[in-house]
Each structure stands twice: as structure tokens, then as C-alpha cells.
């Protein structure tokens, strides 16, 4: 578990920075309006002054945030506000983009995510991701879920692998619907089922954090409701971060909400505070539909 102690590497630097850490400030540069939870949950992912550049263009400016474990954190904001960019920093998906540079510090359980020694493949198993469009492999339902555990060597034999696959499909609330056709192609499922298959695939490698980038935007309301119900169930065991364009969805599924605008984290706080009484005018304008 990550705790701010004097042993933390940051705390060994300049005295002024140590004071900042101790008083639990996020950053000297940060202008983010923050409303803490009444009983804060332990932090799973910690970001400090994260900036992202695409070539010469800066897309994200000094974002600092604590993502609590066993909770859903929603990122909202208009298109191009940096919320997806920031999400992709959390499992280093930005590494795959040419000319993308990330500065600042992101920690998962206190360990630097951008440590050059770190195995990125292993990181992405710990920080799983679900995308906007369901993207099952062109393989069977079973193989879609078995793929991750197999390459990560999580199962010692066939029986164990089957247990993992069935368990993951059950956790993703998909098993009952597909149990008779596990060896049929995953691409033959409906959109909502495909998305749950992708969630099962992410769960199969026992991640700690699940990142979801607009997981319901390609789904109908019923499939969306099923995913939302699933997110609520998964919250008991995982740390979930979801990017969504639907404000109602953020209000329904998340416990904390962070509002991004023009690459800046404007406000973050308990979801009910953000949607009933936001403190920052830009947040208010955006969620009430007054943004020009």
C-alpha cells in the first residue's frame, strides 16, 4: 500500500518539496480545485505534475491526482481536453505513439510506472484496458480470455486455464450467455457481449487497475446498463478509471469525478459534489451544458 512517509524518494529531495509532500499538497503548480472524500480510500495510482507533449504541442499540463482503490474514478471533459491522453499515461499506452513525451511522475502502489527497468508488458497486465470499440481477437471466445493468462504463464495446466477463463467470464457477467459456445468466434457476439468479453479478457490476467476509455459509447442502452452494472460489481475488487462522454454515466457509476479542460485538471471531488454543487465555474458550465 502506498503511504506518504519520509522514506519516499521524493521526500529526500529539496526541503521545500518535502514540506509540500507532508502537508499533502498535490503540487505547487496545481490550480486544481479539490474536494476530498470524508473518509478517503487508500490511493492506488498517484500522479504528480504529469505533462504530455505530442511533438511540440503540449496536451496535458501538470496533472496531479490520487486515484483511490476499490472505487470508480470518472474522467469527464469536452473532446480534446486530455482525459484520454491522461488515461493512456497510466499504463504507458502513450509509449506506442510516435513523438509523445510524458513528464512528471506516476506511481502504481508507490512504484514509478515510468521506471526504465519496468517491464511494460507486465505493467499492462496489472493495469488493464478496455476500449471504446469492442476489439476481441479473431479467435474463439475461450481463446480471447485464455490468451493473456497463457502468455503471462498464469496457469500451470489446462484445468487451471479453464478455471481462469470460466471465472473471468463469470466476473464479466458473460458466462451464462456463452457457456454453450465457448469455441465459437468472439467476433460473432453482439456489441455489448463483445465488450464484456473484452472486460473478461482484461480481468483474466488479474489486474489491479482497469482503465476504460468510453466503454459504452458504441453500445445500446440495455448493453450499456449491463456494463454499468458490471462496473459496479467489479469495483469491489478493482480500481477502475473510466473516461466517458456521458455525464449521466459518470454520475451513475463513479465515486469520484475529475473534470479536464484544455489539458488542465480543473476540478476533482466526490461525484455527488461535482454533479450537484461543483465549486469551479468551468466545471459548472460544462456539466450544465453552458460551454461555448
Amino acid at each position, binding site marked *: 500500500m502506498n503511504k506518504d512517509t519520509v522514506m519516499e524518494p521524493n521526500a529526500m529531495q529539496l526541503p521545500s518539496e518535502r514540506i509540500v509532500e507532508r502537508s499533502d499538497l498535490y503540487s505547487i503548480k496545481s490550480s486544481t480545485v479539490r474536494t476530498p472524500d470524508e473518509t478517503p480510500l487508500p490511493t492506488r495510482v498517484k500522479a504528480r505534475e504529469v505533462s504530455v507533449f505530442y511533438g511540440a504541442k503540449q496536451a496535458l499540463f501538470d496533472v496531479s491526482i490520487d486515484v483511490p482503490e476499490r472505487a470508480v474514478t470518472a474522467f469527464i471533459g469536452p473532446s480534446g481536453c486530455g482525459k484520454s491522453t491522461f488515461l493512456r499515461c497510466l499504463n504507458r499506452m502513450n509509449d506506442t505513439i510516435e513523438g509523445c513525451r510524458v513528464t512528471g511522475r506516476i506511481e502504481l502502489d508507490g512504484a514509478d510506472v515510468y521506471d526504465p527497468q519496468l517491464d511494460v508488458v507486465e505493467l499492462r497486465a496489472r493495469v488493464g484496458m478496455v476500449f471504446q470499440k469492442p476489439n476481441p481477437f479473431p479467435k474463439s471466445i475461450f481463446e480471447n480470455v485464455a490468451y493473456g493468462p497463457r502468455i503471462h504463464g498464469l496457469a500451470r495446466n489446462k484445468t487451471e486455464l479453464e478455471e481462469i477463463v470460466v471465472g473471468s467470464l463469470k466476473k464479466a457477467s458473460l458466462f451464462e450467455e456463452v457457456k454453450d459456445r465457448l469455441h465459437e468466434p468472439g467476433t460473432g457476439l453482439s456489441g455489448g457481449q463483445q465488450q464484456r468479453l473484452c472486460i473478461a479478457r482484461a480481468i483474466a490476467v488479474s489486474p489491479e487497475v482497469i482503465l476504460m476509455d468510453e466503454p459504452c459509447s458504441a453500445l445500446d442502452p440495455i448493453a450499456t446498463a449491463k456494463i454499468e452494472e458490471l462496473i459496479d460489481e467489479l469495483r469491489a475488487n478493482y480500481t477502475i478509471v473510466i473516461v466517458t462522454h456521458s*455525464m*449521466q454515466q459518470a*454520475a451513475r457509476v463513479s465515486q469520484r469525478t475529475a473534470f479536464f479542460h484544455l489539458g488542465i485538471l480543473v476540478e476533482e471531488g466526490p461525484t455527488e459534489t461535482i*454533479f*450537484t*454543487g*461543483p465549486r469551479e465555474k468551468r*466545471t*459548472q*458550465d460544462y*456539466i*450544465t*451544458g*453552458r*460551454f*461555448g
Partner: protein
Amino acid sequence: MGEHIVSSFDDELKQIDRLIRDMAERASAMVSSATRSLLGSDAALAQRVISDDALMDASQRELDERAITLIAKRQPMAQDLRAVVAAIRMAADLERIGDLAKNIAKRVGAVGEAGAPRGLSHSIDAMAQMVIAQIEAVIEYYVARNAEALVELRADDEKIDIQYTAVFRELLTYMMEDPRNITPCTHLLFCAKNLERIGDHVTNIAENAYYVVTGAQLPLNRPKLDETGMTVSAGES
């Protein structure tokens, strides 16, 4: 406050606001007419108050329907959500004020031709003026989004409670003086009680208006000064 991207959303919010203002205007007029009709034995005026109450009920229904439709259509957030939810509550309080005014007007026949004793009439009239001023002020501050004034206004309800206690004592004196006063004085007592209750509804409206403006709830413990309970036990001992 900026305008919504969808301008018909603004129109719908404005209509709800308009209805609240109309209802408040009607409520204060009804309280004023009801008290005057009772103190001056004006049966025609009393009748008008009674028919106005039907309009009040209709306005409340219209507001509820508009508010619910707006929630369904727009899923309002933040201050918009607060405004719509508070409008539903405020309309309910205003509708209750209408009911209480009607109840005062209905007593016109019962108090009798002679009307209320002059001294008493003065104290009840003073109480009514305080209540009317509160109704008018609460809507004014709500429209002006003046949170501080709303807090003060809420505290001012105490003055109405004090006036009610004074009227209560005065009525007891009249009734003890001459048993023939008991019937009219009992009706006047109900009238005073209704005015006091209207003050409480205004307090509720102030609390809801404060919530709309600030997003925070006012603390629960408002000072309460209704001493009539003590007066009764003092009289009995």
C-alpha cells in the same frame, strides 16, 4: 450565469422561475386579502381568496409537470438541478400558504358582523403585515440570488413567532373578560396560528432558495420562540 447551448433549456427554466414568482405574488395577495376580509367582515373579499386558492393549486400542478418534464428531457445538473428540485419544493410551500390563507378567509362568517375587537384587530393586522413582507422578501432575494439576505430572513421568522405569542396572550385576556368573545376569539386564534404557520413555510422557502444559490444546506437548528405552550401552563397554575 451563462446561457445554455440549447436555448430551449433556458426557456424552460425561465418558465418555471416565472411560475414560482407568480405563485409567490398570488400567495402574498391572498394572505393580505384573507386577513383584511376577516378583520373587516368582508364576505366578498373572502370569497375571492377562496377562489384564488384553486388557481394556486393549478399553478402548483403546472409547475410540477413542467419540472418533471424538464428533468426527464434535460437531466439537469448542478445549479440547474438544484433550481428545479427546489422549485418543486417551493411551489409546495406556496400552495400550502394558499391553503392557510383560504382557511383564514373561511372564518369570516364565524367571527361575526362586528368583526374583531379593535385592539386585537391591530395586533393581527401587524402580524399579517410581517408575514406578507416575508413572502415578498423571500422571492425578491431568491430572484436576486442573495444568500446572505436569505439567512437573515430565515432568522426573522422569530419575530413572527414572538408576535404570535403576544396575540395569543391578548386573545386569552379577551376571552377571560367576556365569555361571549370566546367564539370570535377562537377563530382569530386560528387565524393567528395560520399566519404563524405561513411564516414557517416562508422559512422553508428561504432554506430551499439558499440551497439553490449556494449548493449547501442551512444548519437545522434555527432558534424557535413559540412560547404559547408556556403561556398555557402559566395560565392553568
